[in-house]
């Protein structure tokens, strides 16, 4: 059971790092250097702040759902 909790925490740390990277990293701290690059009509940093980070958030939650589905079965704690 300790192992289950540890793996859960591991998933959380990885996913939350991505969460922080796209929003606080690409959308705020590095927004100005990223704006030097363009994607169509979007400056890249601006795109991350107003679009990209939100797409990534949605994906992160679904990924966590699927990872935990597997983990719950593996350690036989599912419902």
């Amino acid at each position: 059971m300790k192992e289950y909790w540890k793996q859960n925490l591991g998933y959380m740390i990885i996913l939350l790092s991505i969460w922080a990277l796209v929003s606080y990293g690409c959308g705020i701290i590095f927004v100005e250097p990223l704006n030097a690059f363009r994607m169509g009509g979007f400056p890249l940093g601006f795109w991350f702040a107003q679009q990209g980070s939100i797409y990534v958030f949605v994906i992160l939650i679904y990924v966590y759902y699927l990872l935990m589905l597997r983990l719950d079965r593996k350690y036989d704690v599912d419902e």
Partner: protein
Amino acid sequence: MGIQGWTYVMVGLTFGVYITIAWLSRVKDTKGFYVAGGGVPPLANGMATAADWMSAASFISMAGIISFQGYTGAVYLMGWTGGYVLLALLLAPYLRKFGKFTVPDFVGDRYYSNIARLVALICAIFVSLTYVAGQMRGVGIVFSRFLEVDVNTGVVIGMVIVFIYAGLGGMKGITWTQVAQYCVLIVAFLIPAVAISVKITGVAIPQIGFGSTIISGPDAGKYLLDTLNQIGTDLGFREYTSAFGPGNRSMLDVFAMTMSLMVGTAGLPHVIIRFYTVPSVRAARLSAGYALLFIAILYTTAPAVASFARYNMVNTINEKTYAEAPTWFNNWETTGLIAWLDKNNDGIIQYRAGAAFVGKPSFTGALGTHGERSISNAPSSSTNELYVDRDIMVLANPEIAGLPAWVIALVAAGGLAAALSTASGLMLVIASSISHDLYYRLINRNASEKSRLAVGRVMIGVAVCVAGYFGINPPGFVAQVVALAFGLGASSFFPILVLGIFWKRATREGAIAGMVAGIGFTMLYIIQTKFLGVGWWFMDISPEGIGFIGMLLNFAMIIGVSLVTPAPPKEIQELVDNVRFPRGAGMAVDH
């Protein structure tokens, strides 16, 4: 049929649907009343959460704010979506496993203390009241413009509708009306967005459209965002896509505000409570995903709407004579949300950076030389002559783009759906805090099911009246009031919930100290800077972003105080172990 006729049809139809749902989902027990019987499917809960979540601020104000602020508007976009990642990973599954009715329930049990329960319930009521105040102003705006009834009458109509479905069906009635309200509000937001995107850029997906080129007019062939940057530079505003810089928020403030909104989202009781309604831990994780997906559909469209609205507005008004101004200009001037002061007496509307005059417009009642409504405000030193309330950008956008009357009416129905769905979710939190946490858990443990249900319904009535009062006497503009609720949510609940699950050593004394310190500091700062005219004294952080610091303070207090107080009893540590594993969640119970 004109705009008004269509509006009566759309609003009448949607209200009819809400009432029908209310009748079909009326409840007889407290479990139905507080957690909708605990059997809401994840997809439906996702929609209900999205409607619960997306308020008048999201629907009416947000695109308007982005439209005026450009890049900086991203604090709302990231802040109000990123919190769901925290909810899904850190809170929702565990609180569902714990399986009680309310947030103060968890706090009271986990921290083995009725004082902690009481502090939590005061925080819950306080946060929800602040938040509900913002919603009713949205209802008022929609009614006054589109139904041309008195704002007060409009607010009362809205309140009666909410009382019917929340009073009859409690959480169950609210959940299923919110599903319907989500459908109304998302359709109402997307149809004009798509139509305007096609008009300006020829691309049917607004998310791509606002990064595309303009297809006609003087700016044809140029990227829309480049054109907006150019307009900004020409008229004395900042570039639309540029971050920070002079006249703008600092990077630290943008960071603090985004964090404060994210953490506040995860700590808002009316959002957390939605995860008590699903049948299992797995369903709680999945419905967080659905919720954010449904929210993201609106939140990724809003910045596109913002840029289209800005482009359209400047093009249709700036440097035009008052006589040339389109009809929507006069319509919104009538409601007092647009005003024009012809400073250089040339009869032409000049839209520039800076405020046109001091304060909100106060109309003299007379008409000026060009037929405009005269105002008595002192002119400012800028060359700008136009006052535009941010809140109208979404509501006026279809009119600005010249879309048909039924689309404009649909937007009105959508705005009402957004405001009413959020208001009803908040009212349930207020009602359940008093009737369940205060009356049943703290005052009368022997209350019968029937009397508890009756108290719940009476409290919904009280909450409706309070919300109605705020609708008639609105404070500030919508998103600003709402932003404050987040600071309070961030600095009160989030830290004690997270540590309650992830740190067994967190003690009762720590939790109480943390909540009191967090919300005390945040409130002090907000009251000082918003109402007493004190400067932003803490590292130049705005009152909207201070919840982040309040949260850090809360974390620090819990950890510090917990380490010097005796460890929680053994059964509490077992309880924490228990919530960490999904099996055996069962239905929510109330004792």
